[in-house]
């Protein structure tokens, strides 16, 4: 019966030779020992086998035949998906579902586990293990269901390399299978054209073309060339068609941007091509090393005797720990290696063979020395970080192995042509140029790697395994710091539990001795992962969801909650992300450098005693001493003891807060200091709503006032006629004063305090210290210095300024709501309508609330009377700002409570009542000002509620075509091994978390709009030759180009809101979720009345 199946479905067959000829796997049974070549020794495979091609392995055939029937459906599904990719999903108007049904998705997780396991085996060179594993999966029916053609292809690829593959095996093959088969034929010298022809014709029968092979397969090493060789054996002048299917962007918002480029002038970087290539090399070598060790800024602090002693002690122990871990790892691996590999359960062993043992140990040591805070870290987070680090290293090495690095260098070098100043002017975007270059350099491996992302569970399990090793093996003598103690070998890491509400959380805590050693040694070297450091060369442009940003370090286009994968499927399906990718690329091309004078001032304060007022965290020596008391001491009363205890807890909490703040600042400043003479770039990616973020985590322009102040554009531009004025206005904006003055008013104010400004610039720490009282003191100081330099230059209009000037959206969320709802009053208050003076919605709301209060006070409400004179812009600001982002009364009350507590004069006993009262008034006030807003919010919430109630996840598409899915799902628990199997992972299931889906939809939708607006602005600024970066709704550019940027910003806002955004959302939702759901239709009807009235 199986033979019948064979005839029907197997078009290509394979002879599967044993994967290791010499050893001759014993358990394979006699069936396949049919031919002489089964016993060929490994070395003999390299040649002379063209002749022996028939005789398919009966056994393999049989095995596969069994699977076929089951899998055909699945493979077809895969192929269907493949072909779907060609057609644009957005254009499809009927019931086609975007996300594969839920079943396939959970299955996807297992599949990717299996795939990564196989890949890991192959990478580690343990083909036998991979093979055995695949077989054991195959033998059991219910496990076999989880296999797919991709997994067989992995093995085929390997066999192809060894020229063992004679014909194709297995299931209904897809492109990858043919690719491997042909590659194998190409690799075989003198392969008979007849064989190749047969293969090609079978391919045709399957509806696949040779061109598809070249355009859609992912190649490693020289696979492509071998494939080409095979094809050319039969078609000598075959030339793969270049992949030129550049689909125009569908969104009307950017149609003109892509089609009419005549007057675009894309900016060039201020570097020669050679310089850029040089930078590329440095970045490449940094990423290849995966870690960077830099001097901490504390290096400047004087070294005490104790510090020297501690450093020696630490160094000594570190090398000892290294040895211990190395040994422990080897022993543990031996045990793992011996455990039955036929066992279907995933064994960590292959993952532990990916790198040198030494490298695993280094990763672990790095955790102890630098990433574990004294108060401990949750096991899950620690494990995830370790696992990710391992994955990154593995990816980088894999790229090296696949000969990608070389090709990348070639393409990048050619790519610099587009950016450098000494080359011709291009009218293409970076992404387009890169794609073009890839087509030109088509031979060799494909750059867009197909590396399987390790599923979250694998990452964490691997990390847990490593933590386990550390906890069990790392010891220290207990008398090392205090000789009075008994000498005992004690562990330096402890696995304990903390209890959070009703959950218990596994925690790893360092022994106080370790903490003390680390703190007292104040080591001057910091080791970071390479991606933490900004890039030394312009980032690789994003050309697809899988490729871009860093050179080798894998980066996700879209950040996500741990374990969520739904959005990846969506992105992969979505063919036209061009506009989104281009805007990310635009943000990434901005070059930066350090504002050195400011950095020096900050470091001097940092190394002195810090300053809470200026947001420079003080060193731990300034921390409160943890009071010591003996609970057994009978002289305390129980109230006193309780009090003391509370004090101890408070002090501990404070200390750990201070420590984390201090370390954060230390990292930021050290990185800045390391980059002080460099020019660098921040590659960008985005969150699931399309908000963009720079990838380096600590030091970037999104950070605090301090980090923003030490960053300036690398490129300088003259101030021009209005630049100086913009600098001054910018300064006033930074102070937080004059919120209700017109721009002219702010300028006049700046001019009236020029003396203070110059004094601040000249004597920042010893003068009148005007800058210290600004809202954003450090940026204000930097601005003072820039103004001082400009006014003192012979011609301020020609003064070259590197300074970024910010233009902040005035309550951006409300702006979008007001525009969506065509809310005139609301729009006026957030400056969407022309006005003489800038409107300030916060003051507006504060005023409104004050009116309510006065009325209530009149009528004798106690709390309203108490509040007299305390209602200010500041009190309501945060709540108003976050109302659009879905803050609840509860959260709003907490915000207001915080503000009220900051007011010293406000009677503390009324804080609760007052905040409760105020938040109610703020909500009422807003409702009166923004009528449309509330209605739109309600509509969105109701739609989301219905969608998630129906068991589906809320999805939509931004006007730029970015698909968005809300990643809120119920968590299901997955138990994992290691550490006494204590850790449980929560993995997101497919069931939506209704409450989150519903509450988050309005804010997420608005965020997706504001990110769209930012992207549009970025694109158009790029075409106008501007430097442009953004911090969400705050846009930065040179003083010279502020006016142009503002114009672009306004135009794009209008363009965006001229689109029928809500109409399209409604259509999308109806189309996707509905067909038949009366409620949603009702909602839509409501919507149409609400909007275009």
């Amino acid at each position: 019966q199986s033979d019948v199946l064979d005839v029907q479905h197997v078009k290509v067959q394979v002879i599967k030779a044993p994967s290791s000829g010499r050893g001759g796997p014993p358990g394979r049974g006699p069936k396949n020992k049919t031919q002489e070549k089964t016993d060929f020794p490994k070395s003999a495979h390299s040649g002379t086998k063209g002749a022996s091609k028939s005789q398919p392995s009966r056994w393999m055939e049989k095995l596969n035949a069994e699977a076929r029937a089951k899998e055909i459906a699945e493979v077809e599904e895969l192929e269907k998906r493949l072909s779907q990719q060609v057609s644009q999903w957005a254009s499809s108007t009927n019931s086609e579902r975007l996300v594969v049904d839920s079943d396939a998705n959970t299955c996807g997780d297992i599949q990717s586990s299996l795939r990564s396991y196989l890949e890991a085996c192959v990478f580690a060179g343990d083909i036998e293990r991979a093979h055995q594993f695949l077989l054991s999966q195959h033998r059991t029916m219910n496990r076999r269901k989880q296999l797919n053609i991709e997994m067989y292809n992995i093995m085929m690829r390997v066999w192809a390399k060894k020229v063992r593959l004679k014909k194709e095996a297995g299931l209904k093959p897809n492109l990858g299978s043919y690719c491997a088969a042909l590659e194998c034929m190409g690799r075989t010298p003198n392969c008979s054209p007849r064989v190749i022809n047969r293969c090609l014709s079978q391919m045709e029968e399957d509806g696949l073309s040779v061109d598809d092979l070249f355009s859609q397969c992912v190649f490693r090493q020289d696979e492509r060339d071998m494939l080409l060789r095979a094809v050319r054996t039969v078609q000598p002048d075959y030339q793969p068609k270049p992949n030129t299917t550049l689909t125009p962007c569908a969104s009307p918002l950017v149609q003109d941007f892509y089609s009419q480029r005549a007057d675009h002038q894309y900016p060039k970087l201020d570097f020669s091509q050679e310089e850029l290539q040089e930078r590329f090399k440095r970045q490449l070598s940094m990423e290849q090393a995966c870690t960077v060790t830099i001097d901490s800024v504390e290096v400047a602090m004087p070294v005490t005797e104790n510090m020297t002693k501690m450093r020696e002690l630490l160094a000594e122990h570190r090398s000892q720990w290294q040895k211990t871990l190395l040994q422990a790892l080897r022993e543990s691996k031996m045990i793992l290696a011996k455990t039955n590999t036929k066992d279907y359960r995933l064994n960590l062993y292959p993952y532990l063979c990916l790198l040198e043992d030494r490298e695993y140990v280094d990763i672990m040591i790095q955790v102890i020395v630098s990433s574990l805070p004294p108060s401990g870290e949750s096991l899950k987070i620690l494990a995830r970080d370790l696992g990710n680090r391992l994955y990154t290293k593995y990816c980088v090495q894999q790229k090296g192995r696949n000969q990608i690095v070389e090709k990348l260098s070639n393409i990048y070098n050619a790519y610099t042509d587009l950016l450098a100043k000494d080359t011709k002017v291009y009218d293409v975007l970076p992404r387009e140029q890169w794609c073009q270059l890839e087509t030109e350099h088509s031979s060799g491996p494909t750059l867009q790697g197909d590396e399987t992302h390790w599923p979250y569970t694998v990452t964490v399990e691997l990390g847990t395994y490593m933590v386990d090793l550390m906890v069990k093996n790392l010891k220290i003598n207990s008398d090392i710091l205090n000789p009075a103690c008994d000498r005992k070998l004690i562990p330096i890491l402890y696995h304990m539990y903390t209890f959070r509400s009703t959950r218990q959380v596994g925690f790893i805590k360092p022994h106080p001795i370790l903490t003390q050693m680390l703190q007292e040694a104040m080591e001057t070297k910091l080791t970071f992962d390479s991606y933490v450091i900004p890039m030394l060369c312009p980032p690789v442009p994003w050309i697809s969801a899988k490729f871009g940003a860093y050179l080798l370090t894998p980066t996700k286009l879209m950040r996500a909650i741990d374990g969520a994968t739904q959005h990846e499927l969506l992105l992969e399906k979505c063919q036209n992300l061009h506009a989104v990718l281009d805007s990310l690329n635009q943000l990434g091309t901005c070059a930066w450098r350090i504002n050195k004078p400011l950095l020096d001032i900050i470091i001097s304060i940092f190394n002195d005693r810090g300053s809470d007022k200026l947001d420079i965290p003080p060193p731990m020596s300034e921390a409160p001493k943890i009071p010591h008391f003996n609970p057994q001491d009978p002289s305390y009363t129980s109230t006193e003891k309780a009090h003391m205890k509370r004090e101890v807890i408070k002090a501990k909490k404070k200390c750990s807060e201070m420590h984390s703040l201090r370390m954060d600042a230390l990292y930021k400043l050290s990185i800045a200091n390391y980059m002080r003479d460099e020019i660098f770039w921040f590659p960008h990616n985005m969150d699931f709503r399309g908000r963009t973020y720079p990838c380096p985590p600590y030091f970037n322009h999104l950070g605090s006032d301090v980090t923003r102040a030490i960053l300036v554009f690398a490129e300088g531009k003259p101030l021009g006629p209005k630049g100086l004025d913009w600098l001054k206005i910018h300064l006033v904006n930074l102070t937080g004063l004059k919120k209700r003055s017109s721009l002219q008013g702010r300028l006049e104010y700046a001019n009236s305090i020029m003396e203070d400004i110059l004094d601040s610039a000249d004597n920042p720490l010893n003068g009148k210290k005007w800058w210290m009282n600004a809202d954003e003191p450090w940026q204000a100081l930097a601005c003072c210095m820039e103004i001082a330099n400009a006014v003192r230059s012979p011609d301020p209009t020609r003064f070259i300024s590197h300074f970024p000037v910010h233009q902040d959206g005035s309550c951006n969320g409300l702006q979008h709501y007001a525009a969506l709802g065509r809310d005139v009053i609301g729009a006026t208050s957030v400056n969407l309508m022309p006005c003489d003076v800038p409107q300030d919605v916060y003051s507006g709301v504060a005023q409104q609330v004050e009116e309510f209060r006065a009325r209530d006070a009149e009528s004798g409400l106690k709390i309203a009377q108490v509040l007299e004179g305390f209602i200010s812009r500041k009190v309501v600001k945060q709540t108003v700002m976050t109302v659009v982002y879905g803050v609840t009364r509860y959260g709003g009350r907490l915000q207001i409570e915080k503000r009220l507590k900051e007011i010293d004069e406000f009677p503390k006993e009324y804080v609760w009542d007052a905040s409760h009262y105020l938040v109610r008034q703020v909500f009422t006030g807003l409702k009166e000002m923004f009528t449309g807003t509330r209605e739109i919010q309600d509509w969105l919430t109701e739609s989301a509620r219905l969608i998630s109630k129906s068991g589906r996840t809320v999805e939509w598409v931004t006007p730029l075509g970015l698909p968005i899915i809300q990643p809120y799902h119920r968590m299901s628990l997955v138990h994992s091994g290691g550490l006494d199997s204590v850790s449980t992972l929560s993995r997101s299931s497919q069931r939506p978390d209704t409450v989150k889906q519903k509450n988050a939809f309005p804010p997420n939708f608005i965020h997706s709009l504001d990110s769209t607006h930012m992207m549009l602005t970025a694109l158009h600024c790029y075409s106008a030759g501007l430097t442009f970066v953004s911090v969400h709704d705050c846009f930065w550019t040179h003083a010279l180009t502020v006016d142009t940027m503002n114009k672009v910003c306004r135009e794009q806002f209008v363009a965006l809101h001229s689109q029928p955004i809500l109409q399209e959302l409604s259509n999308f939702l109806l189309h996707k979720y509905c067909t038949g759901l009366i409620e949603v239709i009702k909602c839509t009807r409501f919507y149409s009345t609400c909007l275009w009235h």
Partner: protein
Amino acid sequence: MSTTVCRLVVLAMRSACCHTRGTRVCLRQAVFAPAGPQGSCAPGAPAPQRRAYSLDSLSSGPGRPTLGHISQQPRGERTSPSSALTHRNLSAVAVQGQRRPLCRYDFLDLGEVEENVRQAQACKKVRHFIVDPSLAQVVTQHLGPDLEDSKAAIFECNPGPGVLTRTLLNAGAQRVVALEGDKNFIKDLQELEGRLDGQLEVVHCDYFKLDPLGSGQLKPPVMYSDKLFTDLGISETSWTDDIPVKVVGIAPQRNERSMLLKMVYALFERLSVYRYGRVELNLFISEKEYLKLVARPGNMMHYRAFSVLWQMACDIELLHKEPWESFVVSSRQGVPVSKGKLPNDHLCLVRLRPRADLFSSGLTPSNASTLMLMVKQCLAKRKVKLIDRLNLWSPDSGGKLLSEMGMPEDILTGHVYPEEYRQLFQLMEKSQEFTQSWLYEEILENTQREGWA
């Protein structure tokens, strides 16, 4: 003469109360109606409006209430002087005509069941109520046996329409404090309070929200226990003294577990109400929570730190099981759905009486937090070896400790009895090695939060 009659009737009545569940109270009332005005049989000094009722001062002291009853003593119908206290000063009130006189022979009307149900269901929060008079009777019996002789005050948590309250008073409880968290019930309760003479005190307070961990101004029904106790004139007693307060009520379902944890935590540290002595809880808790509470070693699923601590601290007695349906609930959900493997068809009336010998042989309220830390760390997983956990505290000491305890080396944490944990702790207290360990100094995190699981 009349007194004798009365006494006889009372005796008959008591036995009726005790032995016939489900007798309609109104019937009994009808029986006693003729005897109604005999409150006048209690002449004496005028009663103070509100007595400062101090347990310490029961026999003597300034807080002692009116002495009027002494004159009643010769009447000989009381078994103890304290019981006299409650009943003897009624006539004065009656004379004043402001209050309805009440004595043990005079029963309060429990109200129409339908009306009580309606009131209970009107409650906005999800709560369970005792409305069935027979159920109230059962609870009252369990609080007995001799309510009128007991020195302990009874705190009734969230009485709602007050069916249990009245039943308690009818059974002769000397001092009932109704702690009601919902304003809507307060009025009726206060009205009742006004009609009585000090046997009932009504406080707008939610017992289960006493002593919040956060800071800020407190608004009733949230309050600190010291305010509550001071206002009621109850002063601190020694741990080994008699039970000063019996609490009766239904644990709120919403945060049953974390509330129980918070209470046992307070118990060990003698904080909150336990400052005032061995407060006895008589709580209705859900069956599944009860089963966890009394889970024994070896039951790896349900034997948790929570069970160990309660079993260590208290004598736990299951007094009564009542199906969920017998309670009136102020929400549509009613009977909870049991998701776990444990049955959950009943609410269980459980008595948690703190052991008088809890704080002896080395355990004190100040080192109890370390004991709790130990128990919680050990039982986070039940299938780990105890020796590993102990070695974490002090390397190499685990074996020594276990052999001293006479336990096998490979015993799992889930197989150790609460009493053994306590002994273990006592040994640790004596051992130098342990007290030197930094873990010993660790303070349980999350004490800030209410949820203390």
